[in-house]
């Protein structure tokens, strides 16, 4: 079988591999080595490898243009995309410097010009790069301190600090970023160099920057809910922390001590070097920066993390530290690198996960406990440290805690990338090393679950989304037994955050899988009897229905003007559905479409029209004739005929396309012009692609009538798919995109729903956010804000106060939770949509939002 015939589908075909050009091969090998530099656990081997890698570079760098260009670009890419490697890359450059100083001269000039080009591009109004890239380049240059002329780095860092101080009044976010970036880079000067007091002046200068900037409550994840609860103190304010945390001897301990390993190689190389027997130092001029341009500069890309004062979350709090203490430089140092790695390597999440799994190898080996060390074991280590049994004390820092904590902050605070990216990196990490990560995730889940009552709405939703995707990749396994008692205690609540969380999490899991599988996951193994225990408590959440059968009966009876026969028929059909429904019943079989029941009034006409719609290639003219006929045939004067007919039409399309969501959307697209006409939309020439096509008569519906029709369409879809919210919202989104529905009606429907769908159903919220994001003009946001406040005020009027008291009845408490969710939703829209889009925002709302922006965390 080894000599099988080559096939087109073969992944690899070595038989036809051509001989490679030696230059291409050399460049390929050298760049590959640079990319993987420092990925070994042994420092001496790493330094030997680096010395080996440097040989072809120093020999061929000047001779082969391709090699020079490729090496410089690769170094640039590694420094920006894998910033944890800056120190080890700097070792390569220093060894090259000893062998051929022109290489390091080129390298320093290359990075200098990269930064200078960035500032030039700012002058020209088209930024190429961002300030975060400047930070990583500065880190790298700082690591090269031993081969940079004395005072040059000081001047450059001083220049940036001065820029930040001058910029503080005119462009605070950028000033804060430059200030923080410069200070976080500062200790890197001692990565490969001895500590001196040369840089103390910069710390003095930094004091001129007003770093006393509070976090705004509106941008944090927790909410005390009118001081009903204590909010966990988990924030590290980057600006406040950075300067006091810099202690050079402590900072130096973070880096690998390459010096002793590097020196013999450097000395030997210098002895052999015919041009210079001492380490050549290179110039690093200051940068030409136009301060006026910076005043107007808006943050882009990863810099946007600074659009609000930044903070890091610290959720892993034990009796002993599993991550560096929040007020230390180490905390900021590691999280800064992880943030940049995760954001800049976004195009390859597998590699991001691999790099995270060896993250500790790029730093001092004593800093972290061995990867995957369980917390219990760390507790023992801590105990031994306290008892003096470990001399020197062993580290209890857990790399996985640090990584996951950084991810949580990135995911939950206005994520720069799509949240799914962060989720899938964590999934990849967990799949690569399940024993390391699964318990760390478990502790994070428990932390946020425990704090659900104080989480804001957006964070709760994102936590739920993460957890659902996470466990869907791991066979939906979760310790459901931990939640049973909570669920039982909250039986009578509808809007309690914990209950809402459990309900929406399970419905999300069902959407990613199916009811049966999720039902089967509600089990645990009884250790005593070794038998499976099923948690029936969670079976109540398996139904996705937005409404019960009473709603369907009422809706259909009302549609037929209170017809008693229809009422009995629908009641009977609902009961039949209920009796036959199980967890494996398909959504299609759960659907109750009454117009194909032979006992329904006008059945023969419905049947005729249904058959007509089922056929393909029906012309507008044929449709017009059949629709007019049906209008004439429905003779019952007690019916609200326009409403009745549009409900019938929409539900019939839904029934024909009930095989799937895109089957429904497909049939709606097929008949889009016809549907627009029936919905009262004014048709344009573009609605008639064929020139000779029959044109519908002009629509005479008034704007008010059109509103009624649109609401009827929404109601019809809510009714027919009331058991599958996902179908409802995907179809409605499609109708909004197709200009049949006005988005604001959809928002009104969800806000006015007696079930408070916008806050109680995550499918609804996610769908409406997508709709909102796709609308170019945002006056709708201000409408929405007004409606949310009106809704919250109306409920508040019922409950009088937002203080939760033990003596409150459950119904009252439930309403108070609802008020909190609406207020949280208000905050969400305020913080996630630009104010310039909502300049017409009413004055009271503006005041509330401005006030929210002022409240400190």
């Amino acid at each position, binding site marked *: 079988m080894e000599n099988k015939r080559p096939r087109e589908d073969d*992944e690899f*075909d070595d038989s036809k591999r051509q001989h490679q050009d030696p230059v291409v091969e050399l460049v390929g090998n050298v760049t590959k080595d640079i990319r993987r530099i420092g990925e070994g656990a042994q420092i001496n081997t790493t330094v030997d490898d680096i010395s080996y890698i440097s040989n072809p570079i120093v020999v061929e760098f000047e001779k082969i243009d391709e090699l020079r260009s490729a090496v410089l670009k690769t170094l640039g890419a590694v420094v920006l995309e894998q910033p944890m490697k800056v120190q080890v890359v700097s070792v390569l450059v220093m060894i090259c410097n000893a062998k051929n100083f022109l290489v390091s001269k080129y390298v320093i000039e290359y990075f200098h010009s990269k930064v200078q080009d960035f500032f030039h591009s700012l002058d020209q109004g088209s930024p190429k790069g961002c300030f975060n890239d400047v930070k990583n380049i500065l880190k790298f240059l700082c690591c090269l301190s031993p081969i940079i002329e004395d005072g040059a780095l000081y001047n450059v860092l001083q220049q940036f600090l001065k820029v930040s101080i001058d910029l503080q009044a005119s462009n605070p976010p950028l000033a804060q970023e430059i200030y923080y970036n410069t200070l976080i880079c500062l200790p890197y000067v001692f990565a490969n160099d001895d500590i001196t007091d040369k840089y103390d002046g910069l710390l003095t200068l930094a004091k001129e920057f007003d770093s006393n900037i509070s976090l705004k409550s509106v941008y944090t994840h927790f909410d005390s809910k009118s001081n009903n609860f204590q909010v966990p103190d988990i924030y590290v304010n980057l600006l406040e922390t950075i300067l006091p945390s810099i202690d050079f001897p402590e900072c130096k301990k973070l880096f690998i001590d390459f010096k002793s390993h590097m020196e013999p190689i450097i000395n030997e190389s210098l002895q052999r070097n015919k041009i210079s027997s001492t380490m050549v130092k290179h110039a690093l001029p200051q940068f030409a920066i136009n301060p006026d341009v910076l005043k107007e500069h808006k943050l882009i890309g990863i810099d946007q993390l600074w659009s609000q004062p930044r903070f890091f979350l610290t959720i892993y709090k034990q009796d002993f530290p599993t991550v560096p203490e929040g007020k230390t430089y180490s905390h900021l140092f590691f999280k800064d690198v992880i943030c940049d790695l995760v954001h800049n390597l976004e*195009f390859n*999440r597998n590699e991001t996960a691999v790099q995270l799994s060896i993250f500790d190898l790029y730093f001092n080996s004593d800093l972290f406990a061995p990867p995957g060390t369980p917390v219990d074991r760390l507790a023992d280590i801590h105990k031994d440290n306290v008892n003096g049994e470990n001399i020197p004390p062993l580290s209890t820092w857990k790399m996985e805690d640090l990584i996951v904590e950084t991810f949580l902050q990135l995911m939950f605070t206005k994520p720069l990338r799509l949240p*799914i990216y962060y989720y899938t990196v964590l999934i990849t990490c967990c799949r690569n*090393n399940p024993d390391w990560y699964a318990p760390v995730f*478990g502790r994070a889940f428990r932390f946020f679950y425990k704090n659900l009552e104080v989480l804001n709405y957006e964070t709760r939703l994102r936590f739920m989304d993460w957890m659902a995707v996470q466990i869907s990749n791991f066979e939906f*396994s979760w310790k459901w037994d931990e939640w049973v008692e909570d669920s039982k205690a909250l039986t009578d609540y509808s809007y309690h955050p914990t209950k809402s969380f459990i309900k929406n999490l399970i419905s999300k899991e069902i959407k990613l899988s199916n009811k049966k599988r999720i039902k089967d996951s509600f089990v645990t193994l009884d250790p005593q009897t070794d038998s499976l225990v099923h948690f029936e408590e969670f079976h109540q959440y398996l139904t996705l229905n937005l409404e019960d059968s009473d709603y369907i009966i009422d809706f259909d009876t009302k549609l037929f003007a209170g017809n008693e026969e229809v009422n009995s028929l629908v009641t009977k059909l609902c009961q039949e559905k209920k009796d036959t429904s199980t967890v494996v019943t398909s959504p299609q079989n759960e659907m109750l479409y009454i117009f194909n029941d032979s006992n329904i009034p006008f059945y023969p006409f419905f049947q005729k029209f249904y058959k007509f719609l089922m056929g393909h290639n029906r012309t507008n003219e044929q449709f017009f004739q059949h629709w007019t006929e049906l209008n004439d045939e429905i003779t019952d004067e007690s019916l609200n005929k326009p409403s009745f007919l549009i409900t019938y039409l929409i539900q019939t399309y839904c029934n024909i396309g009930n095989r799937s969501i895109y089957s429904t959307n497909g049939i709606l697209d097929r008949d889009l012009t016809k549907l627009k006409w029936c919905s009262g939309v004014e048709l344009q020439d573009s609605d008639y692609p064929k020139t000779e096509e029959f044109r519908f008569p002009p629509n005479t519906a008034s704007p008010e009538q059109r509103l009624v029709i649109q609401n009827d369409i929404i109601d019809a879809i809510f009714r027919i798919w009331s058991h599958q919210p996902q179908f409802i919202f995907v179809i409605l989104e499609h109708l909004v995109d197709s200009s049949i529905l006005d988005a604001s009606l959809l928002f009104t429907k969800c806000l006015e729903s007696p079930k408070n769908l916008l806050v109680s159903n995550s499918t609804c919220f996610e769908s409406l956010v997508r709709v909102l994001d796709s609308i170019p003009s945002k006056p709708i946001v201000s409408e929405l804000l007004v409606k949310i406040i009106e809704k919250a005020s109306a409920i508040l009027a019922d409950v009088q106060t937002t203080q939760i008291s033990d003596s409150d009845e459950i119904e009252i408490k439930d309403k108070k939770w609802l008020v909190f969710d609406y207020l949280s939703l208000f905050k969400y829209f305020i913080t996630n949509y630009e104010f310039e889009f909502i300049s017409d925002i009413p004055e009271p709302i503006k005041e509330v939002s401005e006030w929210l922006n002022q409240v400190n965390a």
Partner: protein
Amino acid sequence: MELLEENYDHSVERLDRPSSYLIKKAVRRQNFENLEKSLHSKTVYVGNLTNLITEEQLYELFIKCGKIEKIIMGLDRNKLIPCGFCFVIYKEEQGSLNAIKYLKGTILDGQNLEIDLDPGFVEGRQFGRGVYGGQASQEGGNGFKGGYRGRGGFRGRGNGFRGRGRGRGGYNGGFRGRGGFSNGPRDFES
């Protein structure tokens, strides 16, 4: 073709590019049209699905990468039932690039998703091309794994060495790795 040339812009390979399967096919046929199209396509091919997968399940996961125009389920051309693949068509190009970057290899309903950029759906492609009407790769037998394109599994850092291809010999161990790949059960217990 630009795509096939190394440009050293990044420190690792981008995932939002056509698979080696598509590239090799294009090179072998010296026809790069589909490859070019796939780079700017809004469509992704998704393989290695269970036959019981539904559009709704796919929607729930793929919507996280961008707004979806349409999902077209791959069907057994004889039985007209899903046969393990589909096409997801996004409204924007970025959606398909996100899907390949973020979702390739993740699990949906117990299956590892195979995702590849696609030059664009044309009518007829929704039907399986296997002898029996299903998906060719799944009907293939002979131990061909991983559906459609048969990629290898985890690259395995157990042995550590990634190889620099220069034969220095004397590998000192520990290069980029520690410990093997464990596929044991997950336990969220601390």
